[in-house]
């Protein structure tokens, strides 16, 4: 924790992570402990540690299963998740939610749609929300961050003011506001709302590591050799700044999925539930949660597990890439 400029500490978590980009591969070795072999790159040495980290493997495993599920679920789902196959059983009072039965191991939802199929296929939309929200946030953050980090000076100052304004609104509140005022709520508005929260984070992150890069030897060298600013930014600075961004992304994937659920809970989610999505299913289940908690519990569990998977992966990546936490 170098107290470089303690007044910028507000965004420390972000900036510290950013710092790992430019940091040497050596790391702090305990007295007498074997030092990393010289010349091993950051990523490689990180990977060598990751392969041994049970936390990472667990996280990666969960994520893998999730992604595969998202891809194949339409094929393995027993029924069409949008078809109200058990609708005729639904009675608002006596039987609002058809229970488990032949071919419907988990029963159906309030519209007589097979719950199992919806859970399976739900992984798809959930992944989409997570991934697109992350990508969108990343894209926004990247463009701002590159602007700021690459050119510094007044561009930097300006961009960072904007970012600070965005950061000054508590995250979920921002998503919440954006979703709440969307003219036509839909999956897209949800994604945008969730992504918007991440833009400033990514921007800061990238700027941080790019600034770290600016002063790093190889960039200075490149500049000394008269490489064009553009080339420096895109060939030298950007690639080396990505490590922390990757870490953050995995964490954001988790956050997005959870935030999306929160939005649905507040009635600001995607109104169209033909394409099931876990967050939406959970949010919608509030109506039935008292007598039919399983409608909420299943999607909730799915979300928790997947979010946990991403987080485990992200955190262990962070640890691995952060020379400070190598012991």
């Amino acid at each position, binding site marked *: 924790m170098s*107290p470089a400029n303690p007044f910028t500490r507000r965004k420390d978590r972000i900036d510290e992570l950013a710092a790992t980009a430019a940091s040497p591969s050596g790391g702090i070795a*305990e*007295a*007498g*402990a*074997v030092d990393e072999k010289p010349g091993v790159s950051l990523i490689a040495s990180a990977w060598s540690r990751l392969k*041994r980290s049970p936390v990472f493997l667990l996280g990666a495993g969960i994520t893998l299963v999730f992604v595969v599920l998202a891809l194949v679920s339409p094929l393995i789902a027993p029924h069409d998740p949008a078809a109200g196959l058990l609708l005729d059983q639904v009675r608002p009072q006596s039987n609002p939610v058809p229970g488990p039965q032949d071919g419907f191991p988990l029963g159906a939802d309030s519209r007589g749609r097979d719950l199992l199929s919806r859970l399976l296929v739900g992984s798809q939309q959930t992944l989409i929300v997570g991934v697109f929200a992350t990508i969108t946030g990343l894209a926004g953050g990247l463009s701002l961050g590159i602007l700021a980090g690459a050119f510094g000076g007044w561009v930097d100052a300006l961009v960072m003011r904007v970012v600070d304004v965005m950061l000054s609104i508590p995250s979920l509140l921002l998503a919440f506001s954006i979703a709440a005022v969307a003219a036509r709520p839909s999956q897209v508005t949800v994604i945008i709302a969730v992504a918007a929260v991440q833009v400033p984070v990514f921007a800061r992150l990238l700027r941080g590591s790019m600034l770290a890069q600016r002063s790093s030897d190889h960039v200075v060298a490149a500049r000394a050799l008269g490489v064009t600013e553009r080339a420096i930014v895109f060939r030298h600075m950007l690639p080396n700044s990505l490590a922390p961004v990757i870490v953050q992304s995995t964490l954001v994937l988790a956050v997005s999925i959870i935030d999306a659920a929160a939005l649905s809970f507040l009635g600001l989610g995607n109104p169209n539930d033909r394409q099931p999505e876990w967050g939406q299913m959970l949010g919608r289940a509030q109506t039935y949660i008292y007598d039919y908690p399983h409608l909420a519990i299943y999607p909730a569990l799915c979300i928790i597990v997947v979010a946990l998977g991403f987080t485990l992966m992200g955190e262990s990546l962070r640890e691995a890439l952060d020379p400070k936490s190598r012991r």
Partner: protein
Amino acid sequence: MTDTATTPRPSRHGDEPLLSVRDLSVTFRRQGEEPFTAVDGVSFDVRPGQTVGLVGESGCGKSVTSLAIMGLLPPRGNTVEGTASFEGTDLLRLPADEMRDRRGRDIAMIFQDPLSSLNPVVSVGLQVTEVLERHRGMSRKAAQPVARELLDRVGIPDPDRRLKDYPHQLSGGMRQRALIAMALACAPRLLIADEPTTALDVTIQAQILSLLKELVEDTGTALVMITHDLGVVAGLCDEVNVLYGGRIVERGTRHELFANPRHPYTNGLLASIPRLDGARGAPLTPIRGSVADNLPWDHACAFAPRCSQPVDVCTAQTPPLEESGVRALRCHNPVR
């Protein structure tokens, strides 16, 4: 892989050893990695008032030796064997709390990097007085003048102000002096200095060394000087142990060692020091290769691959440590 235990013989001072290290071995085990023996059956004595040097390249295990003696190795992931008896009590078997009582009182230590070795958020004064509070049972108030006295003694100007200062406000030299003051606060009988000058400018180095020298001389504190710099040794030590790959490869009094180094490694170290009195243009002869090339000691000489005059046996069997008096040597083919 055990050496024949050396029987302590009288030194110039002629009295019992203050610290006597026997067959000290330290092995690090980190999950997923080969166990690594950093110190491998090291034995040496330190007598009261004596200054003993542990010399070697980084990674030769000298720091680990000192930390092992101080009981400062990380709690997990390592095993320590052998004994380090200090006035008869084996420090290595001592319960943690008793060891705490001795640290800073009987044995003190100063470290390589004065900045990182000082707590940035605690005033220098407190970092000195806390030792006194702990071991002399003084109140913080009572400790103040003593601390002031100490700083003054290690040559820190305007000690009153410095007591209130924080490490980052001191210069590198002053920081090291402060560390020394802390170490000597309770007049320990043994002081271990781990590369105390490496992080300092050459000019400062000289000052610190002479300070140390002066201090040990008028307090009668025994000093274990850990360094890679034979220059330091030359200026300070009565007796020198040269470590290589976790073992002592040569031991002797300063004079013997500098006069006629027997081990090719010692020789190499000496040869790689630029000498002002050497013939102009006389080439420096560095030791080739690096620690990375070491062979395992079990049935070879670890130094063989880098040796200037290896013979077949060097790669075939472990050279034993042959001792005569203070002198000791571990080599199949010593320098004549």
